[in-house]
């Protein structure tokens, strides 16, 4: 087990280097100059000085190595556009709302998705199953910007007098309800479908028959024997779900004017703030890679059969 963990952690290192390299190479292809905002041309000498200051005149591999060193020491460098601010400041300021939104949406998805899937599986091919699966399929297919817009339309415009929910910002708890639902609906549907499939598969196992034959109460068979074993495959969905949440947050933060990473990302790309875009991309990729690593290790601990396979 220790060997597996060590190997998995060590494998993550070259992948992180690769992702940084990929981002780095891509970023260098972007045309344009972050220092030249107005029509006024910057004198050659000042341009050179600026490039020298930010190390943009070094060969690319030197810049790459310097950047990797920065990532390791948790210093993502200065912003090229905003003076006196570095990427760390921006992350510190914009990351907490995004993290909170993601966590709330994930909690929403788990709390509603897993019971929905379980219900569907236990009443397979009856009306609760059909209802749950219609909800799940539609919830998965409807784009989140429509969900967000409809939520705002009904709860803030149509029935605004009754609910009076703020539709922008990220301060009061009321302002967090609608974005959480809008972002969490897709993952909820995903969890419901996954749980249903997984529970149906588990119900066919011999140990469930044994548990029933022993005369265990239904509740115990469902919760201890079925659900616990069914949730293992659900854990592995964390990677795609995380990607889903990050992708969704770009749209949801825009609609609800939440000062998070997703919204700032678009601003930074438009302003050609290379170092911020670079830093945020690497950060998002790092989160997914580390989450995958944790999930793989967890999976190995939860399900001993997978250890053999590796």
């Amino acid at each position, binding site marked *: 087990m220790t060997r597996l963990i060590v190997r998995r952690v060590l*494998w*993550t290192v*070259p*992948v992180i280097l*690769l*992702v940084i390299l990929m*981002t780095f190479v*891509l*970023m260098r*292809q*972007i*045309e344009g100059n972050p220092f030249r905002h107005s029509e006024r041309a910057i004198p050659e000498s000042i341009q050179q000085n600026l490039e020298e200051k930010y190390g943009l005149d070094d060969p690319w591999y030197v810049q790459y190595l310097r950047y990797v060193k920065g990532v390791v020491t948790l210093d993502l460098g200065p912003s090229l556009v905003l003076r006196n601010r570095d990427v760390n400041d921006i992350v510190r300021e914009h990351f907490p709302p995004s993290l909170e939104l993601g966590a709330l949406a994930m909690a929403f998805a788990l709390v509603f998705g897993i019971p929905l899937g379980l219900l569907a599986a236990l009443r397979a091919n009856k009306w609760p199953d059909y209802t749950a699966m219609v909800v799940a*399929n*539609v919830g*998965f*297919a*409807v*784009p989140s*910007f*429509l969900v967000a*817009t*409809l939520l*705002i*339309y009904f709860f803030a*415009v149509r029935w605004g007098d009754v609910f009076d929910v703020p539709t922008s910002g990220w301060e009061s708890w009321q302002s967090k309800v609608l974005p959480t639902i809008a972002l969490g609906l897709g993952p909820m549907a995903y969890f419901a479908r996954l749980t249903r*499939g997984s529970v*149906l*598969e588990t119900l*066919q196992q011999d140990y469930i028959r044994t548990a029933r034959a022993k005369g265990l109460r239904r509740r115990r068979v469902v919760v201890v024997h079925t659900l616990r074993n069914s949730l293992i495959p659900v854990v592995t969905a*964390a*990677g*795609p*779900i*995380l*990607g*889903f949440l*990050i*992708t969704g947050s*770009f*749209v949801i933060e*825009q*609609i609800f004017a939440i000062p998070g990473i997703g919204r700032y*990302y*678009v601003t930074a*790309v438009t302003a*050609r703030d290379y170092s911020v*875009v670079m830093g*945020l*991309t690497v950060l*998002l*990729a790092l989160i*997914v*890679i580390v*989450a*995958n*690593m944790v999930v*793989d290790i967890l999976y190995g601990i939860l399900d001993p059969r997978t250890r053999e396979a590796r």
Partner: protein
Amino acid sequence: MSTTPHQRRALLSPLRLRRERRYPELPNGVPGEAGTPVRASSLWRDAWYRYIRNRAAVIAGVAFLALLAYCLVWPLVSPYDPYEVDFSQASESPSLAHPFGTDQFGRDLFTRTALGGRVSIGIGFAATLVILSIGVAYGAIAGFLGGFVDNTLMRILDALYGLPYLPFAIIVLAIFGGGNFWTMVVALSIASWFTTARIVRGQIITLKENDYVRAAHAVGARWLRVLGRHLLPNTLGVLVIAVFLELPGVILGEAFLSFIGLGISPPDASWGSMAQDGYRAYRTSPHIIIVPSVAIAYLILCANFIADGLRDALDPRTRET
């Protein structure tokens, strides 16, 4: 036997049922005498047969074809110009003249949705093809070579599983300086091929181990025949499924990018850019954003059910209970 015909039919396997239909004069459709020719059934024929028995998948398939036909044909015969601005009939609710209403510029949404569908679905299929090409190359190299190469390539994929494609897509769009059909295709494929590569590699590894592949080798089949007769048809099945697995993600990606103003931009119609138009006016006329969004949802639902049906049809071993 005292079974009813209905029960008896249920007991029959699909293949037997079909044989019975084709040779009604034979008991159970099985030829009695030796030497009676039995037509070999191909993989695709069987798959087609299994597919059309899946009602949800058939409905989804027909609905999908209907959508394609609507997108391709309607803009040609529509009485309205999808680009002509006419404020005298702006933001009209759905009516007989305009089944989906009009947008805030007075353009007929029924026509623009068809036009936007061309772009969105076109981008979807083009990007899916690129994703499949990269995925097949990567997966095939890993699967065929095996050993150290396979190990390295797959460990990289493990770690990248679920990497969000949107930041990379945004960077690619910034490189090209904006979104149009082809830049969107590149942007949406660049970080979306990991899953396909995984599926292809898994399929090839499984196929290589199959007894019939070994048997083919053992009876002296050349590698080209093994590839053409045993490996390729089976990988193709997975690829056909993968088309419909990837399509929803790409269509949504286009919609997201256009919605936040980085993809296809108005007045060019795509479902994403139409949703962006609609978002600007959702307080007074919510139907403008609902129409393209429902089109997206409709397409994704179809694709999901088609993918399910195809999986059951082409890969019966993994059939869901």
